[in-house]
């Protein structure tokens, strides 16, 4: 359980976090997303008190860390595992020794340390590099050792700052399985900072979007994905690139109901004629189907009728254009050459 209220953090004059309210329930996975520089890492660092909040309060498992000191602060921190954005491995220790470090500091017996280290190395697929030094590891390998180390003390809360950013899809999936396993079997509360929306859809229960130090949107993943035109919703389930539709009229469709019959497309074809699937991302997320499609329909069809027919099967529809790259972000670079 992590409860954050009114959290503000400033560096000099600039606020980096500005009145954050966020609650992550026990055995929940919360994802925090948002543009680069939004304050996500700072948020994580405030939770384990690596940064002292300028104002506001944070309680983790019922304890207000800012009020603790000395031994009780250390005990509280041992309950919080942290995966750092840049693995932060000790350069003079091997992979195995890096994982062992927190256990040694906690005073675990040698045999116990050895067996846990071996287990963790195996979980992150790094047994074969146990005795390599960080400088001899690839970026992703380092990151996996960082993940293993964060689990060394069997924390009840895990802060994962872009743990899977540098990992290939298979390794990512393995890590995500590990995290969901921790949540489901051990009730670990997990805060995941990530830019990978499939990770959010894949494992998060709730999601919050941070921008310029504020939470601009938050909610359960299933809700957010199916809520209307919100930017977070579009970000979470992005519309794949679609070709131009020729003489058809493009429509953007979005699953809005929990119970959308998978056969809706066949049924809608019978009422509206051929449905040209230009782009589609349909999948199961959190036990319900979610989806976003760009389709082409006969341009002569009545707009209202189209909307009604699709609403009847559980989809929201809006007329295009829908080429994704027209929606440039504020930070976009121009496509011209470097001058």
């Amino acid at each position, binding site marked *: 359980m992590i409860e954050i209220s009114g959290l503000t953090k400033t560096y000099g004059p600039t606020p980096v976090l500005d009145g954050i309210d966020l609650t992550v329930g026990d055995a929940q996975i919360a994802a925090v997303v948002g543009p680069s520089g939004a304050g996500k890492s700072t948020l994580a660092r405030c939770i384990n008190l690596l940064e002292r909040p300028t104002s506001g309060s944070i309680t983790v498992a019922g304890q207000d860390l800012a009020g603790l000191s000395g031994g009780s*602060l250390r005990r509280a921190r041992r309950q919080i595992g942290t995966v750092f954005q840049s693995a932060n491995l000790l350069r003079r220790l091997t992979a195995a020794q890096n994982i062992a*470090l927190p256990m040694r500091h906690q005073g675990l017996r040698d045999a116990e340390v050895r067996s846990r280290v071996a287990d963790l190395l195996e979980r992150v697929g790094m047994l074969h590099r146990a005795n390599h030094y960080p400088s001899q590891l690839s970026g992703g390998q380092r990151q996996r050792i960082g993940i293993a180390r964060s689990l060394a003390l069997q924390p009840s809360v895990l802060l994962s700052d872009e743990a899977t950013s540098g990992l290939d899809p298979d390794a990512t999936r393995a890590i995500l399985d590990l995290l969901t396993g921790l949540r489901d079997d051990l009730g670990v509360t997990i805060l995941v900072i990530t830019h990978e929306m499939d990770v959010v859809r894949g494992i998060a229960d709730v999601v919050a979007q941070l921008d310029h130090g504020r939470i601009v949107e938050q909610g359960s993943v299933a809700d957010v994905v199916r809520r209307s035109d919100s930017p977070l919703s579009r970000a979470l389930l992005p519309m794949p690139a679609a070709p131009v539709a020729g003489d058809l009229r493009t429509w953007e469709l979005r699953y809005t109901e929990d119970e959308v019959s998978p056969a809706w497309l066949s049924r809608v074809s019978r009422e509206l004629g051929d449905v040209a699937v230009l782009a589609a991302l349909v999948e199961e997320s959190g036990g319900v189907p979610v989806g976003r499609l760009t389709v082409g329909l006969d341009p002569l069809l009545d707009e209202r009728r189209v909307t009604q027919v699709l609403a009847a099967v559980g989809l929201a529809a809006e007329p295009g254009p829908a080429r994704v790259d027209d929606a440039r972000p504020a930070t976009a670079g121009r496509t011209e050459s470097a001058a």
Partner: protein
Amino acid sequence: MTSLLATPWADVDDLLVPALGETVRMVGIVMAIVVLLGGPLGLLIFNTSPLGLTPHRAVHVSISWVANLGRSLPFLVLMAAIIPVTKLVFGTTIGFKAAIIPMSVAGIAFFARLTENAVREVPRELVDVGLATGATRWQIMRGIQLREALPGLVAGFTLNLVAMIEYSAIAGAIGSGGVGYLAVNYGYRRFDDHIMIACIVVLIAMVQAIQFSGDRAVRALTH
């Protein structure tokens, strides 16, 4: 100026070998003390500084001040200033034992700074790892700061060791002996060229060997 009175080459050994033993013993004991006390002192200076683990202005300024004392005075003056302490501890102000205290004081002050400098190079993020995993301050200092600074510390140790050989030559003035002193006394004051040459050769070989081993150790520790 070749001396007519130079010790015959055959007899040089008789002076040199015991002097070498004295140097090794003196510098060895002093370095043990220096590392044991100067290391922690340096850690403390760094960690009470604004960049450290537990910044504390008053403590930082005072211990930094104390550490500077040991480096402020010319070694000969320091030796004289410390005589009362030496006398109290060893009951003598002369010889091998008496040299150990002033050499240690100067060495501790020097090594404290070298330690501070080495530890300062440890990336802050690695200290954060210790904090985030609930390590004690002592564990962070020992297990993270010192361990990560190891190559720098070994390089500093090497530097310090060589400086102590220099100091042992000055400490020779109170009868502690040693190769450096032999060089100063026989070589420099008495113009005994044979002893001088022999001492220089031994000193150069010694420093060379120390630096070589130090460099190797540093490289071996750098991953």
